[in-house]
């Protein structure tokens, strides 16, 4: 049975984990002493926060881990009340097959508002006797101090090249893929140290051909970064507003992208333009201004249009 590789190759013990050596070492000693504090795992996407939380549960509870581990995602759950409700019914009873507290894993906590985080803090205190919280976030600065001070904070770094290489080679061996070093380099570059993306790219390529080539990697990655963005930029700078706006709308429709995602991609693409640095600097500044208005305003596309119109007069 074919599976999604990000799950198939997710490490299930400390020994299988590649990279994040320091974090792993300390978490391993917590588990060994069977004494887990609340944890705050902070770091970019795809660096092992969820995996390590799952490993902690598996190592602590063995085969019963599922009953003693509650996984919630702050960005999908509809509000803190839902989260509190689930936590309450889960933490009310003692853990099965052990004297240890249960674990509640709350992912993407930076999606919670400050008020929701305050509520979360009270919930954490309320159930400390029966449950431990593992919180994860991308930016620890978005987590309020009272929560940070209750947790042992661990910072995850983007995976290093040697780690990514190891992961790719392990999977390649298991799945009988043919891949050369240059292609591995390319996947690493495209992944920005995000191992989930690495594995997804790898599986997508493998679904086309077991021999992974640079061109297929490029094809898959470019689907995620529409090349029309560059065109939109060049046209709007050249003053062809109407054409630029048409293409922009089509990209959004075809790829199902929001205005916010578009402005992020535009901002990233500016740096690649063949133009003077001062102009790029002003274009980026304009992007920032419009992104701010987007947050404040109501019509994302109208804001993007204002951005395109402003590009033509930056000289």
């Amino acid at each position, binding site marked *: *049975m*074919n*599976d*999604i*590789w*990000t*799950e198939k190759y*997710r490490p299930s013990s400390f020994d299988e984990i590649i990279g994040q050596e320091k974090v792993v070492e300390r978490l391993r000693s917590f588990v060994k002493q069977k004494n887990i504090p609340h944890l705050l795992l902070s770091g970019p*996407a795809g660096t092992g926060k*969820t995996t390590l939380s*799952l490993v902690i549960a598996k190592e602590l509870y063995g085969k019963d881990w599922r009953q003693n581990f509650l*996984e919630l*995602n702050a*960005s*999908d759950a509809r509000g803190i009340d839902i989260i509190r409700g689930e936590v309450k019914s889960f933490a009310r009873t003692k853990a099965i097959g052990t004297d240890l507290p249960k674990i509640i894993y709350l*992912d*993407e906590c930076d999606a919670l508002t400050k008020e929701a985080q305050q509520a979360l803090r009270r919930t954490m205190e309320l159930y400390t006797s029966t449950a431990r919280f593992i919180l994860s976030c991308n930016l620890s600065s978005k987590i309020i101090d009272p929560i940070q001070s209750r947790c042992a904070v661990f910072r995850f770094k983007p995976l290093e090249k040697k780690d990514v290489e190891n992961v790719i080679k392990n999977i390649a061996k298991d799945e009988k893929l043919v891949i050369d070093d240059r292609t591995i380099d390319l996947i690493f570059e495209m992944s920005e140290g995000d191992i*989930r*993306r690495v594995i*997804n*790219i790898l*599986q*997508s*390529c493998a*679904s*086309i*051909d077991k021999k992974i080539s640079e061109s297929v990697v490029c094809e*898959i*990655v470019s*689907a*995620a970064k529409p090349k029309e963005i560059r065109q939109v930029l060049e046209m709007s700078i050249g*003053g062809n*507003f*109407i054409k630029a*706006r048409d293409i922009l*709308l089509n990209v*959004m*429709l075809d*790829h*199902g992208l929001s205005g916010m*995602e578009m402005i992020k991609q535009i901002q990233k693409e500016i740096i690649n333009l063949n133009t003077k640095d001062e102009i790029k600097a002003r274009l980026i500044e304009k992007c920032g201004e*419009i992104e701010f*208005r987007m947050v*404040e*305003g*109501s*019509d994302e*596309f*109208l*804001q993007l*249009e*204002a951005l395109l*119109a*402003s590009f*033509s*007069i930056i000289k």
Partner: protein
Amino acid sequence: MMWTEKYKPKKITELLQVEQTKSLLYQIENYKKPILIYGPTGNGKTTTIHTIASSLNYEILEVNASDIRNTESINNIIGNSIRQSSLFNKSKIILIDELDGVSGNADRGGVLALIKLLDETNFPIIMTANDPWDSKFSTLRKKCNLIEFKKYNDETITSFLGSITKKEDLKINYETLKEIANLNKGDLRASINDLQIVSSTKESSLDDRKKKETAFNVLKNIFKTREVSTYEFDKTDLNLDEAMLWVDENLPLEYSGIDLAKAYDALSKADVFKGRIRKWQYWRFLIYQHALMTYNIAVAKKEINPNFINYKRNSRILKLWIAKLRFSKRKEIAEKIAKYTHTSTKRIIKDYPYIKKILNDKEIIQKFELENKEP
């Protein structure tokens, strides 16, 4: 019921690709060479084949090209059934659909196996492809008769949609049908699907013509003069959201360069005030929203454009709205995958381009019950 099924042609005379149908009919009845039908998605390639086959009383043996990986896999699917005679003694046509998905090149993989198959079978083989000019098909191409199915133009699609609205007794205006056709760039199947979505969720307004007249007069005042009241739109029965879209759509037709940038800056600020009103329910901000989108835009121009401009209605809201409905399917899929891979729906949607290919895998489709996956 899906309208794409309900309104599928039943007889040869109902087929839209008239010339192509004739040519295909002739070639099947006087079969000499495999037939390769090509053209963009949703323009009736497969439908035409099925309709012709059923009227000629042929049995179709359909093979999806993505299942063709090597000779062995072809034999597994097609091989046996070629040798078996049909249950009702019908003749067979082998239909290899969506050739673009076949792997490999002329020297290995699926394409090579396919070429072998073409050489060995006596049954008529018809293939469909979007892009037969891909280099991997160069050898294959030479062995086939090619028939091009051209993409439909917007009028053909619009009038087909029109005939459906009549049969379904829908009150959807012509403009909307045109938008749907335009949005789908010649893809009739997608257009019909969109029409079904639109009909099921949205009542179309009938006073469009009146609205257009009103908007026209106000826009003319804003774009062609500087003497504009800041409440220009209050004189009309257009609501402010609609008014803003009218300004937005037509502004670049009147202004350009620095004037356009200034005017859009004003419009963008008007939108910010709109957002603030919504957030804080502080209605006095309406004054600024009105002023920014009328007066400030009127005075942003250095010179008045002397040309007559035929103002257009704004279509992007409809388009974005249809796209959103379309992508709701994606969200459903993402929810399933997110739960399984311990991550958030948002994250999966963000990474969708990276995992799209994975989700085409048959076993993965089964595992997550993604049968109705998005096109």
